């Protein structure tokens, strides 16, 4: 039996050699892609175009604008002098937000004669940057407001620890975005690579009419499946190591847990995805169909990984379904071993 499986594996490798650019593409291309996507998506939101309409032009208003600029969230394009410019820029989608400072802003604050109204206009057509802009502006005004209140109450600022709760982030002390985005992107790339290879394996033979030839040969179906599996597993494993290397070297994602455990679990995961790919492969009559099914299945999995949205916040039914999605567990494993690892007992970093 082993000899026959070996023969089949050799046949698959002959195909791969013949089509060497396919695995090469998938592996090297995938690695480059992870590099670019990881780089582009793992940065904090910065540089959002903001317009300021300063009716006050006082030291107080300039201080506010400087505070906004110092957050790095914004790029203040220009100080405009009328509302029309802001309206048109938002309509054109040129800016994410605008701040309008009233003429008596500084005066009111200094003399405690009233509450100046600061108007912020957000461009809701891009909700993610708009939300970030809102949070940043709220944060800046809260800080300024707190300081003013303390001055009014004649409280000494040094005595006060501030009204913000002290925050600590575990497993990712600097709150680096790369640490939580790139493992998920790695999982996505790996899943699509395995699914594609597995899904095309039988479909391609069927489409080219060579599946019948394979079936009339003295192989059992188990032998054929095993023979087809081994190259895919190999490609999947190499892909994983390559992608892990990139997340580690380029994005500084640590591997804090035991590496052998990680490799064993990834091996199991590759087997599961391989099985799924084979099912797609058997359902589809053409490679075109197999490909479209891979897209749908892959995106459903992606939905449940917890990369884009936390699974705990989903409706109950979806949370149950999530348990049947291998990629969901895979991301938990990746985050657990890479980031949490042996973190814990006796680790001085978070005791205190």
């Amino acid at each position: 039996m082993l000899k026959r499986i070996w023969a089949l594996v050799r046949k698959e490798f002959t195909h791969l050699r013949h089509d060497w650019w396919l695995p090469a593409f998938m592996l090297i291309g995938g690695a480059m892609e992870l590099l670019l996507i990881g780089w582009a998506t793992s940065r904090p939101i910065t540089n959002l175009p903001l317009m300021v309409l300063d009716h006050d032009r006082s030291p107080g208003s300039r201080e506010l604008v400087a505070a906004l600029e110092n957050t790095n969230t914004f790029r203040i394009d220009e100080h405009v002098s009328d509302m029309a410019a802001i309206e048109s820029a938002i309509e054109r989608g040129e800016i994410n937000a605008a701040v309008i400072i009233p003429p008596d802003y500084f005066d009111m604050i200094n003399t405690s004669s009233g509450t100046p109204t600061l108007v912020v206009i957000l461009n809701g057509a891009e909700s993610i940057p708009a939300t970030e802009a809102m949070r940043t502006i709220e944060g800046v005004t809260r800080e300024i407001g707190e300081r003013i209140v303390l001055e009014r109450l004649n409280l000494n600022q040094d005595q006060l620890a501030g009204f913000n709760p002290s925050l600590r982030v575990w497993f990712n002390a600097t709150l680096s975005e790369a640490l939580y985005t790139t493992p998920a992107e790695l999982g996505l790339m790996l899943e699509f690579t395995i699914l594609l290879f597995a899904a095309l394996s039988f479909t391609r033979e069927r489409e080219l009419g060579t599946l019948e030839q394979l079936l009339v040969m003295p192989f059992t179906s188990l032998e054929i499946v095993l023979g087809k599996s081994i190259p895919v597993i190999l490609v999947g494993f190499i892909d994983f190591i390559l992608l892990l290397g990139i997340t580690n070297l380029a994005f500084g994602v640590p591997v804090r847990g035991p590496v052998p455990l990680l490799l064993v679990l990834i091996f199991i995961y590759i087997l599961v995805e391989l099985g799924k790919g084979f099912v797609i492969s058997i359902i589809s009559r053409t490679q075109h169909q197999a490909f479209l099914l891979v897209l749908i299945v892959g995106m459903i999995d992606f939905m449940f990984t917890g990369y884009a949205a936390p699974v705990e916040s989903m409706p109950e039914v979806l949370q149950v379904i999530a348990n049947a999605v291998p990629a969901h567990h895979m991301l938990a494993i990746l985050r657990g071993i890479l980031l949490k690892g042996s973190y814990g007992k006796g680790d001085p970093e978070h005791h205190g």
Partner: protein
Amino acid sequence: MSFRHLRAVTRKEIFHILRDRMTLVLVLFTPTILLFIMAYAITVDIRQVPIAILDYERSAISRSLIQQITAGDDLELFSQVDSFDEIEHLLIQGEIKAALIIDPNFSSDLFSLRGLPIQIIIDGTEPQSGAYAVDHIALRAEELINIQLTRQIQALGLDLDSIQPIDLRIRTWFNPSLKPRVDLVPGLISMVLGLPALSVALTLSHEREHGTLEQLLATPISRVDLLFGKMIPYIFFGLLNVILIPLVAIAWFRIPFNGNFLLYFALSTIFLFAILGLGTIVGVFMRTQAAALALSFLVIFFPGFFLTGIFFPIASMPEIARLEALALPGTHYAIITRGVFLPGVGLDILWPYGVMLLGLGMAFIAIAALFFRKKLA
């Protein structure tokens, strides 16, 4: 270019799609299915974040803070623990996303306005939920502080207004409650409508893999006719989706459509032309369908998802990614769909993006035709 030849290739291609019902269904409905999946996957409102609380003070004030924090749907008290070790254990297990620790001197510090002696620990492997918990806890704590501040201000005989020195009024245009779904669904349309490009790449490499490309080339059909003939059926199926998908967005996801549908249809046609052009490049370069598939994932699918500014603002990206974003038809089309759906802007604002798409499409087709000739010569 000959109209008769073009029609012949188009008919042949349509037969290929219609011959097998499953292919037809998949080609027609994959974009809609993906829109559904992604819209639900990405636009989950965060709620019920599981947290643990360690209350060192156990006073009436600390209990009322806990009660206010856990009331409602935002945070879910997974457990109230007695030691720091338990928090550590729960965080490592992934059972909780955040933990709140209330210091023993909580109420005395609060009464004397010395600060806010609470600590929050969040799980940095999935910080969205943690950050949400932090915001929620800070908001409730601020209410407690404000009560104390009000007392002080009254004691000093100051005007109560002075507790809030700046009145921040936030107005959000086009999407008043800042729901991500409202702008992500139009953004995602740019991604799912690009799917036919992958099919075009596949059919071109299909001919080569089966050796039927030589047969086609032996006929008097010119290569440009062949490329366009392959594209036309998918432009047609794509246009069916241009009608179907906004209907889904409007009827199911309740996204407002404020613009002009004819303008949207016209610009969508140009987008299909551009993205299918990208598909033909992939198809021309790859000899097998498997390779065409792999390449289309890398140059069409993943970048279309991550780099077109649907989720990650292009302004925050590094220079290289920004340049690639400019060369992706999806980037310009996402601006068009959002513009037509939400502010409902017209051609006076959208024309540069239309011109850009047209230019990209022509460049892609030119590249494809050029290499098609060379590779077969």
